[in-house]
């Protein structure tokens, strides 16, 4: 496959995903090796901790050993006397600067360094700046903090008990741990449907607290130039421009005097969206010492204090006719937000996009009521590749459909097929108000069933059961909603979620594309060059993609929620089209014809009807910078800028089928097969898409089988290292069997939909459904560790969010 046309036809005709990499760089879409990997595979990536600035100091944070305690005193004198220590900063120091508290992304405040109380284990208490990282750590042991322990609130189900201690007594007038109540959907209509439905199934389920756990932890180097008054912050951020604006708002620094630079990032998954106390302390440390200050958290700090994900206790109900037609779904959610409401969602949506939970099915009514509570756990609630809580929504509906099928003795595949939205129903407005753009769900599902050999698998399962062997087949069909978002409905801290792009063609026909989004390993340097290449016929090899540096890139809200391709990708296509129209004028002047008489063929313009009268983009670029006379009002050079405000989200979908074998004597689960058919619209680089899917599927196995952050009754974090918080390895993953269907998004300029989080969203319920199918249990919560599987088989499942007693 050497041409784009071949590649796209091949995809559409066979439906079989191809990672075959072209021998030469495609002039646009198609699988090509990632440009950035030339440095990564040589070990030449340049990450935050690789950066050394002359005179740079190091830092460390003293953290609370207790989950809930009043601070009686902090004595820093011994630490300050350490010969290599340059500064010790406490909450009191920050309070003097008005920086002891900072706003979160969700209408709350968060302590930068604790002043009155500590509210979760691992909370930041003091910040030491020293000549080297050893001395900084040594000095932590010299700080004496006197605590008065308080009862912690650990079980979210008891956070609203009348006798529960009030965690946020810093907030005036607060007498309980209630954070918010939020609803979506038509409650009365939903209740009416449930009242008259033939069958109703209900289920309590927990999506446990988990962590993004990127390979690289968070960190920053703050450098305040006293002479120019400019603050430079090298930092691990998925959203450099949002960070700059927040620094300006929090610290009162002039925005034009702040430069945020994100170097190579070793994974984000939502972990690098927020602004953490360590970042703010590094800035203060630099102001205090007059030197650059580096702060890099260690693994335990990352797991204990930054941006958990999920933590939704859900009670779901689903209604259907006796013939298996789904009628409605309703859910009550208890959302554990930890000690500060730091969740990163569009600011008008406290449960994010959770209310997409009617899923992929034609249903008349749906309703949810979400109650958020404070607990003595770390704040966060960002992503982990969750598309703003769609992970929880998909898990809910895909578990409920399986529970209903089990209760009624229906085949879960048949039940889904009967109720999936049909292609002629698009655009489809759900009972919860989302307008799905496009899809052919039955075709996508059928493809997965065919690849898996569903009927044969069920036959095999029957034979195995007769022999006493436990084999399970689990299905999930998901609809994602990604590409936040339309400015009128979605913002972060009042900043509309539109993205800018700037494209400049150099005189020799090479190009530079400047973006507001920020890659964390997704391959933006390649994909975005391919988008421009497809529009202009300039090789991706000749297009430099610039991101991460706020002094070098246009404003935009960054990379999370699978929004890069839907928003910044659209901006890149639109800005390339603007440049193309500029090039048309230049070409018309070169050929001395009217611009209307020109026809575009990838790579240049020619006169209609006369292909020999043509100018290539390279020729046009040089001419645009030359002494060529251009029409009045047409400036020279060849560049353009654009801001893309998405008209709607994009809605990728997928059908996943997981096959597991369970050892009934030990509870061990072996994932034998995993079939994943994804529809993310037009695929720019199929190889990169498949890589994204691979990672998300592994995530799903991790979520379903091993990942969890549980807490003991004292509030001790029981997943604070990689010995305790388990991530899946290749040994737990089967060789993925991928497929695809392509239904372009009608409102995206190139028909693409986001895909970064699809597999993370879609895979956990497939694995859980498979395990429960194998052991014949109606429901048990994630993670299904061997111990939990064994207990579930005995009808005594575990509370996975609490310490195992």
């Amino acid at each position, binding site marked *: 496959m050497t041409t784009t046309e071949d590649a796209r036809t091949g995809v559409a005709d066979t439906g079989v995903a191809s990672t075959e990499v072209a021998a030469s760089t495609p002039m646009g879409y198609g699988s090509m090796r990632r440009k950035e990997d030339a440095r990564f595979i040589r070990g030449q990536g340049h990450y935050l901790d690789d950066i050394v600035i002359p005179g740079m100091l190091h830092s460390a944070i003293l953290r609370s050993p207790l989950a809930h305690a009043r601070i009686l005193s902090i004595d820093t004198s011994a630490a300050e006397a350490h010969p290599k220590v340059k500064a010790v900063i406490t909450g009191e120091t920050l309070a003097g600067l008005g920086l002891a508290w900072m706003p979160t992304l969700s209408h709350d405040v968060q302590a930068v360094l604790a002043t009155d109380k500590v509210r979760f284990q691992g909370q930041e208490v003091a910040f030491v700046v020293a000549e080297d990282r050893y001395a900084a750590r040594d000095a932590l042991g010299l700080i004496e903090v006197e605590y008065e322990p308080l009862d912690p609130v650990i079980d979210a189900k008891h956070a609203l008990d009348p006798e529960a201690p009030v965690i946020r007594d810093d907030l005036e007038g607060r007498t309980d741990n209630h954070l918010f109540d939020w609803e979506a959907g038509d409650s009365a209509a939903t209740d009416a449907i449930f009242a008259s439905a033939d069958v109703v199934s209900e289920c309590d389920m927990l999506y446990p607290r988990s962590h993004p756990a990127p390979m690289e932890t968070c960190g920053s180097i703050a450098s305040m130039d006293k002479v120019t008054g400019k603050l430079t912050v090298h930092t691990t951020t998925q959203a450099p421009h949002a960070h700059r604006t927040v620094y300006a708002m929090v610290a009162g620094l002039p925005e034009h005097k702040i430069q945020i630079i994100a170097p190579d990032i070793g994974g984000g998954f939502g972990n690098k969206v927020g602004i953490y106390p360590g970042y703010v302390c590094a800035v203060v440390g630099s102001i205090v010492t007059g030197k650059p200050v580096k702060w890099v958290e260690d693994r335990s700090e990352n797991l204990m204090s930054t941006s958990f994900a999920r933590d939704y206790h859900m009670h779901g109900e689903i209604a259907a006719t006796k013939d298996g037609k789904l009628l409605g779904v309703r859910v009550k959610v208890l959302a554990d937000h930890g000690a500060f409401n730091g969740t990163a969602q569009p600011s008008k949506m406290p449960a994010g996009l959770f209310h997409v939970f009617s899923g992929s099915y034609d249903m008349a009514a749906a309703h949810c009521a979400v109650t958020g509570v404070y607990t003595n756990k770390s704040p966060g609630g960002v992503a982990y590749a969750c598309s703003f809580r769609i992970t929880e929504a998909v898990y809910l509906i895909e578990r409920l459909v399986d529970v209903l099928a089990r209760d009624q003795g229906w085949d879960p595949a048949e039940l889904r097929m009967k109720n999936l939205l049909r292609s002629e129903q698009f655009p489809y407005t759900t009972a919860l108000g989302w307008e799905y753009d496009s899809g052919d769900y039955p075709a996508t599902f059928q493809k997965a069933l065919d690849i898996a050999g569903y009927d044969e698998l069920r036959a095999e399962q029957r034979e195995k059961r007769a022999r006493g062997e436990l084999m399970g087949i689990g299905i999930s069909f998901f609809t994602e909603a990604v590409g936040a978002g339309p400015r009128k409905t979605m913002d972060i801290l009042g900043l509309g979620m539109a993205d800018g792009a700037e494209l400049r063609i150099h005189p020799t026909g090479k190009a530079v594309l400047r973006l507001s989004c920020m890659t964390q390993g997704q391959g933006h340097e390649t994909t975005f060059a391919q988008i421009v290449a497809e529009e202009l016929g300039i090789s991706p090899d000749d297009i430099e993609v610039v991101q991460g540096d706020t002094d070098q890139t246009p404003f935009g809200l960054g990379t999370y929620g699978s929004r890069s391709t839907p928003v910044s990708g659209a901006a890149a296509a639109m800005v390339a089209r603007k440049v193309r129209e500029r090039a048309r004028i230049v070409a018309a002047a070169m050929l001395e014809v009217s611009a209307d008489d020109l026809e575009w063929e990838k790579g240049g313009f020619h006169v209609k009807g006369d292909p020999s009268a043509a100018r290539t983009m390279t020729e046009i670029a040089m001419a645009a910078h030359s002494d060529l006379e251009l029409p009045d009002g047409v400036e020279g050079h060849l560049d353009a800028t654009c801001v893309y405000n998405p008209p709607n989200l994009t809605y990728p979908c997928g059908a996943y089928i997981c096959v597991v074998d369970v050892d009934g004597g*030990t509870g061990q689960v072996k994932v034998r097969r995993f079939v994943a058919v994804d529809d993310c619209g037009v695929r720019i680089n199929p190889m990169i898409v498949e890589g994204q899917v691979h990672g998300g599927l592994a995530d799903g196995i991790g979520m379903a089988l091993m990942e969890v952050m549980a807490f003991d009754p004292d509030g001790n974090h029981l997943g604070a290292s990689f010995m305790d918080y388990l991530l899946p*390895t290749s040994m737990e993953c089967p060789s993925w069997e991928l497929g695809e269907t392509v239904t372009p998004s009608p409102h995206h300029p190139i028909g693409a939909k986001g895909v970064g989080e699809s597999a993370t969203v879609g895979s956990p319920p497939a694995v859980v459904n498979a395990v429960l199918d194998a052991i014949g249990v109606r429901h048990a919560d994630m993670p299904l560790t061997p111990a939990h599987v064994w207990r579930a088989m005995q009808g005594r499942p575990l509370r996975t969010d609490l310490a195992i007693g």
Partner: protein
Amino acid sequence: MQVPAQFEYERATSVEHAIALLQRHGPESRVVAGGHSLIPMMKLRIANPETLIDINDLDELTTIRLEGGELRLGAMVRHAALLDSAVVGEHFAIFHDAERVIADPVVRNRGTVGGSLCQADPSEDLSAAFTAVGAVAVIQGPDGTREVPVREFHTGPYQTVVGDAELLVEIRVPIRPGGGSAYVKVERRVGDWSVTAAGAALWLDGETVTDVGIGLTAVGAEHFAAPEAEQYLRGRPATEESYAEAGRLAAEHCNPTADQRGPVDYKRHLAGELTVRALRRATARARGEAIEGA
């Protein structure tokens, strides 16, 4: 970034030199072999030794050999070397079973047999394996060497009989004909510590179990052993019924504690289930039968 507190570093050039260094630096010094337990503990500042005595140059402790009717393993034999050794596999398949599920290849390249025993982590796999085969530890001090059965080696979690100025130098395993051995482990994920594991070594005379050793990992079994189950099995027929009762006894007499790897009842169940599976596998090997995955 996790960094250790300040410490002194000495590099031993011989066993005698290592012992002299231990004497010189006293009880606040620690021997470092593979370092895959000690160094992380130092970075977390759970361990803060004043001096590290590095014994990685002691090549005399890296040999695997047959001598005097025994398999003799130097304390500095790396996990990977134990796994690679055909001699070890021929006589004690249990060690290959165990090594395949200890951590990951990177750790196995560095971690040592002696380090595992001396770390005495209750979830560590080799202690139960050595217990099952009736191994003897050779400990050297300023006044010479002494031999301690592995069943008397551990005095509690993270504690052994090795004195402040002593070094574990060798582990000896007596070789007897007619035997087979196996190790079976349940872990939450590859490379994790055991939820529970069981090792078994047994010797048959026809269909009768003439002798047996059973080791249990991570279930609070004293000295990693299951003496009641062993006692029951000796002289009994090598049958499923015998093994089921041995498993029941092993489960009954161990003392697991709950943690995030599992509740007490599950670990106790596994102690029995895995004891049965290890006995089954060891029996098949003693009979010379082919074993799946072996």
